[in-house]
């Protein structure tokens, strides 16, 4: 047995750094804090790589399966004899995989931020928040029990809130941060309800106990039915609701595009690579329960994922803010992962979807972080977010151009880049389980290729735009992460996920299924081709198309009016029929009672204050007469 207890430092280091930078950074080393934060994260990254190496290659397997290892554990709250909340570190294939992914992307983003955020006001605050985020995210993936996960889940939400609202003097950023926080928080309510139902039924929070396929938690599953579904199914649907919120799935996706108000490195780290996949991770973490006790909930996962991915892909085709395009693309890709989980079974080749989902999560983190960081470099160079104001940038930004192209090819699923392998596995899993969902995803693959290359051509080719000042390539601190992530995007597809990260920890055989792979490559190429025709040079085709499908285009451009729908529901229904009566009750009944007490007191004291006249002799008179009266009372009347 290898000793993994040092892994607690992976959690503690970023927290200590957060404290150090947050408390002392501003005063003592505002310039150095970026280097300190990055250095600290580099240490954590190294620790994570060591952990991954030791876990995957030197730890013992039992019956060919990777074991779940509790590397560190303390009991935090003892609720009853059996039910207790622990804090600890759990190592299993997905958490170790996430560990590597998070620290890699986070380190790249840290390095990138050194250049991107240079000279910004609140430089040290930014790195303090990044450290807090790293701490929360690592805590989330390493959680040993669902309650610890929930705690870090909320912490992640808080740090996301802080980072989106980093430019707190910008009203839109403040609005976006509030929106993100409230929407995800609302979804987390479902998560909490799910946790409570689940723990009430299974009497445990612990992941290992919960997800043991032979364990009591799954065996007693099913149980009482409510509205046609078992209680377990309901609880898992509620838990999934938290994942929907965090992963920006339909219908809780509305916060993600707005979250792009944050600094671009934040978008790359939180809203592309790590935090938004927390929902996927959550489902993957609870996967045995979904698979054995709540297949209906798993269907919900699949359909929500599929719908979100299609929905987002359509919107992405019409947006012009490059970060928003990437945001919808993220949503679409996460939909893929959800779908893959939803169609997966447990164990062996049936668990292909599970593996594919994790695989795609990993590769997606690489290329989506790359895309965002590239977008950051572009925005850094031309000072605008809108692709309509860009064009012909390939001459000015060669490195960014190359890495961006690699990322686009990757996401479009062109072999032999990593996106091809992971997406192909997902499509294969869908193909074997649900032809309808396969068709949807197949279409989305084409759309993805189209909108990514629309983005690519609009930015780097297209019309030659004249800029106020010549755009110049970003500094080395920004280009090096781009290059590293580009290398990652190219080669991570070669990692044998089927041997490392599988639903039951055992190795299974996969082969490239040409019946799926060839059409998916073809539709990717088709999407690229259409984009090439439409956006390679300035042409009128896009406008004509938009005019032809006027209403469809308008709907998609306005994101299918989801924001308006939310506003309508909250303003017109919730505020008017629930909040207003409650506010009235609070203002008139609750406050009224208090005000009445206060005003009665005030009136009475106003009336009797004349006794406090300040006239010494009046006091003396009252005293003397009082004494005399008491004497009379006690001598003559009180016999």
């Amino acid at each position, binding site marked *: 047995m290898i000793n993994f207890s040092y892994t607690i430092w992976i959690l503690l280091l970023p927290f200590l750094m957060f404290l150090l930078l947050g408390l002392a950074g501003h005063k003592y080393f505002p310039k150095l804090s970026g280097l300190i934060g990055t250095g600290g994260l580099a240490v954590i990254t190294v620790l994570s790589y060591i952990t991954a190496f030791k876990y995957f290659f030197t730890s013992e397997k039992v019956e060919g399966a990777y074991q779940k290892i509790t590397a560190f554990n303390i009991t935090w709250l003892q609720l009853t004899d059996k039910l207790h909340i622990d804090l600890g570190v759990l190592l299993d294939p997905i958490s170790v995989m996430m560990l590597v992914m998070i620290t890699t992307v986070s380190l790249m983003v840290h390095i990138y931020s050194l250049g991107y955020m240079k000279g910004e006001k609140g430089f040290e605050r930014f790195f303090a928040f990044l450290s807090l985020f790293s701490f929360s995210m690592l805590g989330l993936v390493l959680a040993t029990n669902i309650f610890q996960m929930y705690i870090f889940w909320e912490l992640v939400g808080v740090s996301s809130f802080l980072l989106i609202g980093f430019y707190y003097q910008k009203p839109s950023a403040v609005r976006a941060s509030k929106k993100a926080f409230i929407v995800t928080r609302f979804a987390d309510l479902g998560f909490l309800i799910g946790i409570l139902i689940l723990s009430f039924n299974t009497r445990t929070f612990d992941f290992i106990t919960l997800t043991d396929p032979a364990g009591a938690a799954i065996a007693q599953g099913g149980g009482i039915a409510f509205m046609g579904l078992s209680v377990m199914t309901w609880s898992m649907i509620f838990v999934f609701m938290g994942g929907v919120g965090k992963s920006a799935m339909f219908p809780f996706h509305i916060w993600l595009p707005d979250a792009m108000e944050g600094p671009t490195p934040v978008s790359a780290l939180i809203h592309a690579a790590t935090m938004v996949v927390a929902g996927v991770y959550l489902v993957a973490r609870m996967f045995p329960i979904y698979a054995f006790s709540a297949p209906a909930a798993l269907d919900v996962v699949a359909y929500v994922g599929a719908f979100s991915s299609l929905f987002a892909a359509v919107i992405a085709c019409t947006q012009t803010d490059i970060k928003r395009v990437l945001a919808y693309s993220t949503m679409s890709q996460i939909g893929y992962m959800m779908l893959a989980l939803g169609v997966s079974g447990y164990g062996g080749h049936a668990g292909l979807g599970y593996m594919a989902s994790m695989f795609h999560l990993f590769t997606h983190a690489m290329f989506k972080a790359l895309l965002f960081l590239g977008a950051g470099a572009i925005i850094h160079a031309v000072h605008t977010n809108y692709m309509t104001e860009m064009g012909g940038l390939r001459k000015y930004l060669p490195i960014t151009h190359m890495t961006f192209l690699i990322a686009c090819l990757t996401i479009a699923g062109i072999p032999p880049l990593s996106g091809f392998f992971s997406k192909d596995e997902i499509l294969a899993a869908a193909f074997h389980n649900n032809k309808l969902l396969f068709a949807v995803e197949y279409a989305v693959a084409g759309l993805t290729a189209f909108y990514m290359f629309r983005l690519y051509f609009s930015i780097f080719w297209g019309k030659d735009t004249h800029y106020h000042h010549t755009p110049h390539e970003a500094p080395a601190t920004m280009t090096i992460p781009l290059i590293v992530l580009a290398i990652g995007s190219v080669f991570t597809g070669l990692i044998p996920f089927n041997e490392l990260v599988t639903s039951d920890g055992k190795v299974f055989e996969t082969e490239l299924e040409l019946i799926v792979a060839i059409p998916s490559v073809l539709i990717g190429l088709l999407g690229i081709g259409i984009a090439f025709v439409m956006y390679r040079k300035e042409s009128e085709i896009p406008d004509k198309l938009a005019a032809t499908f006027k209403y469809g285009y308008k709907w998609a451009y306005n994101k299918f009016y989801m924001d308006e729908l939310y506003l309508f529901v909250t303003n017109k229904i919730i505020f008017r029929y629930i909040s207003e009566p409650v506010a009235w009750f609070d203002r008139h009944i609750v406050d009224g009672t208090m005000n009445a007490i206060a005003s009665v007191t005030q009136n009475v004291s106003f009336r009797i204050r004349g006794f406090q006249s300040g006239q010494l*002799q009046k006091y003396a*008179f009252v005293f*003397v*007469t009082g*004494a*005399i009266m008491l*004497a*009379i009372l006690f*001598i003559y009347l009180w016999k």
Partner: protein
Amino acid sequence: MASNQIMFILFAAMIIVFSVLTVTSRKILRAAVYLLFVLVSTSGLYFMLNYQFLAAVQLTLYAGGIVVLIIFSILLTSHISQKFESSGWKKNVFSAIAAITGAILSIITILDYKFSATTEAAKEVDMRLIGKSLLSVDYDGYVLPFEVISVLLLATMVAAIVIAKKSGPAKTQSPTLNQE
């Protein structure tokens, strides 16, 4: 009528008359002088009760010290011939009613009560005895109250100096004074 009865009536009459004059006189310096007469008459009563030492203390401390102090402060704060405008009749009447009621009540109580006459022999109070008792720690000693009084007097001395000492620029008029 024995001589001591005559003396008592004389002193009592003086005390009552001058007390009333003290609290009713409209000239403050006169009031102080009436007070002096009251105090002197009181010391006469002490002589009658055979407490010569206390009578002497009364004369020196009260008549000689306190009244002089009062007269000084009158001179510092008022014009000698200043007449008080009489306070409102309502106040006077009610205060008189209260005082008379209290007096009658007390007197009735005093007359009701049967004081048991004692047969014990009177102790001769001479200076030697007083001095010994004041500094004695025995059963009949008063060293503790004596010390406490000493400390009190010291504290008073310090306090009087501190309070009366001019501190900072004196306010000529309080802002709230004329609001009534």
